[in-house]
């Protein structure tokens, strides 16, 4: 025990802070963007829906390194879009913490979007129609009726999004790189520690991530169980 405490004392906790900060911001962006995209897509005409859904889900099925490569192409200061962003607005995503957030957002977005969409689709449409005939305005229908009905799906989507954003590696390493104290996230720390033969440090971080992921999943399942009588129509 003494040894473990001593080990923790000498450990650099920067990667944890960077990962948490990145995860929280990416989750915030994905949360709003995912819900917005999901509620627009559910109402879109069929052809458009099929096409847009494929595009929005792409970051989930694409290898993260490939996604990172495309992000790098887009945001590089040497390319048009990246150059305009940097020169006009001073925004730089390559090799910066902003790049971490951007990569994590892009990769975790489909999880939020997919879960929110599934949750919206299973909301009984008669409930929405009834709300309209009762004179309830559309924005209120969305926030007071659709979102609460879709709450379990949205919540599990948020947790999965956060977990995914927290552990993002591939796209982050391509876009933001691994700059210690700046863009060095936990997942990148594990890779670096392993490469330099520091099994203790790699092991510590890997176990921390494992426990965190497990807690998240058990939390989602518990929430699902608590809400079961709500979902089952008697």
């Amino acid at each position: 025990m003494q040894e473990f405490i001593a080990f923790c004392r000498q450990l650099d906790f920067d990667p944890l802070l960077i990962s948490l900060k990145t995860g929280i911001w990416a989750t915030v962006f994905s949360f709003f963007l995912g819900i917005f995209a999901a509620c627009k897509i559910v109402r879109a005409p069929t052809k458009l829906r099929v096409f847009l859904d494929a595009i929005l889900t792409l970051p989930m099925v694409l290898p993260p390194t490939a996604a990172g490569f495309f992000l790098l192409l887009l945001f590089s200061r040497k390319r048009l879009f990246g150059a305009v962003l940097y020169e006009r607005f001073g925004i730089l995503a390559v090799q910066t913490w902003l790049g971490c957030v951007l990569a994590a957002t892009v990769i975790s977005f489909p999880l939020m979007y997919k879960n929110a969409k599934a949750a919206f689709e299973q909301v009984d449409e008669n409930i929405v129609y009834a709300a309209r005939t009762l004179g309830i305005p559309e924005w209120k229908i969305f926030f007071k009726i659709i979102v609460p009905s879709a709450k379990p799906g949205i919540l599990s989507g948020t947790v999965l999004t956060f977990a995914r954003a927290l552990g993002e590696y591939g796209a982050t390493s391509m876009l933001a790189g691994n700059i210690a104290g700046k863009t060095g996230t936990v997942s990148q720390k594990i890779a670096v520690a392993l490469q330099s033969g520091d099994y203790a440090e790699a092991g510590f971080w890997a176990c921390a991530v494992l426990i965190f992921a497990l807690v998240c999943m058990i939390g989602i399942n518990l929430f699902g169980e608590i809400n079961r009588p709500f979902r089952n129509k008697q």
Partner: protein
Amino acid sequence: MLEVRIKKSVGQFCLDCEFLVENEVFALLGASGSGKSMTLKCIAGIETPDYGRIAVDGHVLFDSERKINVAPQKRRIGYLFEDYALFPHMTVRQNIMSGMGKRPDVNTFKQYISRFFLQGLEEAYPRQLSGGQKQRAAMARMLAAEPDVLLLDEPFSALDSHLSWQIEQQTRAVLEEWRKPTVFVSHSRDEVFRLCERAACIHQGKIEEIASVRELFLHPATKTAAVLTGCKNIAEAYRLDSSHISAPEWGVTLLVPVTAISVSAVGIRSHHLKPEGSGENYFPVHTYHILEDAFEWNLSFRTKEDGAWIQWSVSKTEWSPAEGVPEGFWVSQGDILLFGE
């Protein structure tokens, strides 16, 4: 008064109907998939018709020519859904108050609670209510929003039959007090007969007949109306002379009133056959089989080997198979229904 004249195509299906509803309960009677619910959704503004006009007391809700399409929120139309569509995450109180505007009046709310026998259930969630309580909560929510028109979409079909009778009586009392245009959709002819003053028969998206309920059940003018009002025996027929028709599927010639002009089909209600008689309008029994209902016997017979089956229904108090199967049946010419093209 509710005026409806709408046309809407969805794939192969084409809805085309026109009717007026005074301060009365007006039924849309039709088989499933005939366009009843679609019509209600168009009136409520949930679906948009391709052409036509919908107005309440002269106030236009939809007019394709003048490009008017009032949002469902502004139409003041109450809609009772088959599954009641109560908001599952809201209590009875929140459900009823949801349509009462920004500052719901507590006294008005209490009136609805007592009027619909919901005392003590104010804080209950829909999942904790019985079928009948859900129906009453949905009625209260609908009326609390103070609509100008009511649309009732199969309001009793989700209830057990013994409960449905009780709820029907309560609904009937509420509607009698309310007296504004009400459209009642059902496939149950008995409910329509008990609750409505006039009815429209809708078949494949088209209204074939509008008449008072009594008239519709006694003298349906179309085959659709006859089937929907429960006429079990319908056959093709053609006129022989001014007072006779032939129904080849049944193998009989029938003496009929002289009035009808052209005849393409004939109908006889299963209760109107009498197990007696001979001569004119007589159906000799060739083969038969018997089906037992809870309170009725249903005897199907035909008059010849390849003939169509004809059904006779009789109360168990009046006849039983032990008395022996009649040799033939007779029908009064006044009970014969004739249909044109």
